């Protein structure tokens, strides 16, 4: 099997190398990929949308449909993870570990036993016990707000610098994941519940499609942000810039929700009780 696979791989590689000889020279300004449609984007992006970052304007304006359906793909992946993994168990049908803070004793409550309330005295701990580290906990708690602030900057400043909805959304999700790893999964779920994460997934897609629909209702094509000039009281070019921002916010919210919800499902295998 291995030899057979190796032969196929070498044949494919030979074929691809043979195809490479027909490519234009590397970084050639006259290559076909750079001569047909992209010069239009580069030369007209300022006068069409007043967004200096060409990638953002192409992503959200010229190719807005593409990005909208990519967002729907991400949303579908999040929902698919939920349906594949999520299991709901009754509260009293599992054994749990509790830590008694006053005496320092760890108790195991068997299946069907009476569970103590989460109070000052008892704290639930994970089955795979990890040593309590004050430094990691406090450091992560200190940097998480700044990571989120940076993510908001990335979303809002995507017009002028590298960044945008996808990156910012992933960074907010990563900050949530960092919080869930440094504390435990239950603490993260207390802050951002599963219901809210799933709500964010769909809300982001809704903001994106809703912006497009608003343009349609205002008398222009779907996702033609120039129509927003009527309600924003600006000229169409600035309205396009604002429309791109609205769409990027929608993408950011959707991506954040999906990343967090996939992490919740993967790290607890769908049970949402004990994480990484």
């Amino acid at each position, binding site marked *: 099997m291995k030899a057979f696979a190796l032969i196929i791989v070498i044949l494919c590689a030979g074929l691809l190398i043979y195809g490479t000889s027909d490519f234009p020279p590397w970084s050639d300004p006259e290559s076909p990929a750079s001569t047909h449609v992209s010069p239009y984007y580069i030369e007209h992006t300022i006068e069409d949308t007043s967004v200096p970052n060409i990638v953002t304007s192409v992503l959200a304006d010229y190719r807005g449909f593409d990005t909208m359906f990519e967002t729907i793909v991400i949303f579908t992946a999040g929902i698919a993870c939920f349906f594949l993994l999520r299991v709901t168990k009754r509260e009293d049908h599992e054994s749990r570990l509790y830590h008694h803070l006053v005496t320092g004793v760890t108790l195991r409550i068997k299946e069907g036993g009476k569970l103590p309330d989460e109070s000052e005295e008892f704290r639930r701990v994970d089955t795979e016990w990890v040593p309590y580290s004050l430094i990691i906990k406090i450091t992560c708690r200190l940097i998480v707000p700044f990571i989120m602030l940076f993510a908001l900057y*990335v979303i809002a400043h995507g017009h002028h610098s*590298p960044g945008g909805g*996808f*990156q910012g959304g992933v960074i907010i999700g990563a900050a949530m994941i960092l919080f869930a790893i440094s504390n435990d999964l239950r603490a993260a779920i207390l802050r951002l519940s599963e219901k809210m994460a799933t709500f964010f997934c769909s809300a982001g897609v809704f903001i994106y499609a809703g912006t497009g629909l608003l343009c349609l209702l205002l008398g222009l094509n779907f996702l033609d942000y120039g129509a927003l000039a009527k309600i924003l009281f600006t000229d169409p070019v600035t309205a396009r810039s604002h429309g791109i921002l609205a769409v990027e916010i929608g993408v950011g919210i959707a991506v954040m929700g999906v990343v967090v919800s996939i*992490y919740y499902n993967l*790290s607890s295998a769908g049970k949402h009780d004990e994480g990484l």
Partner: protein
Amino acid sequence: MNWQIEFIILTMVIILGIGAITVKDLLGAGILFGAYSFMMCLLWAIMGAVDVAFTEASVGAGVSTVFFISAVFRTTRGTKD
């Protein structure tokens, strides 16, 4: 152009890619894949694709490594190949 850096990074990418699929420990494979993604991110920053490099740094090197680690944590760490 600083072709030396590019050459080193391209070689590192190949080494890390081979390492990620040959190492006999799935946790190590996940970490090596994260390092591979980070090298890719550097490569794209050199080629001038700053937005792609930013996305790869946050997604490939950050979140997908966490996903691999949590999947390995929920399944098994050892493997035969």
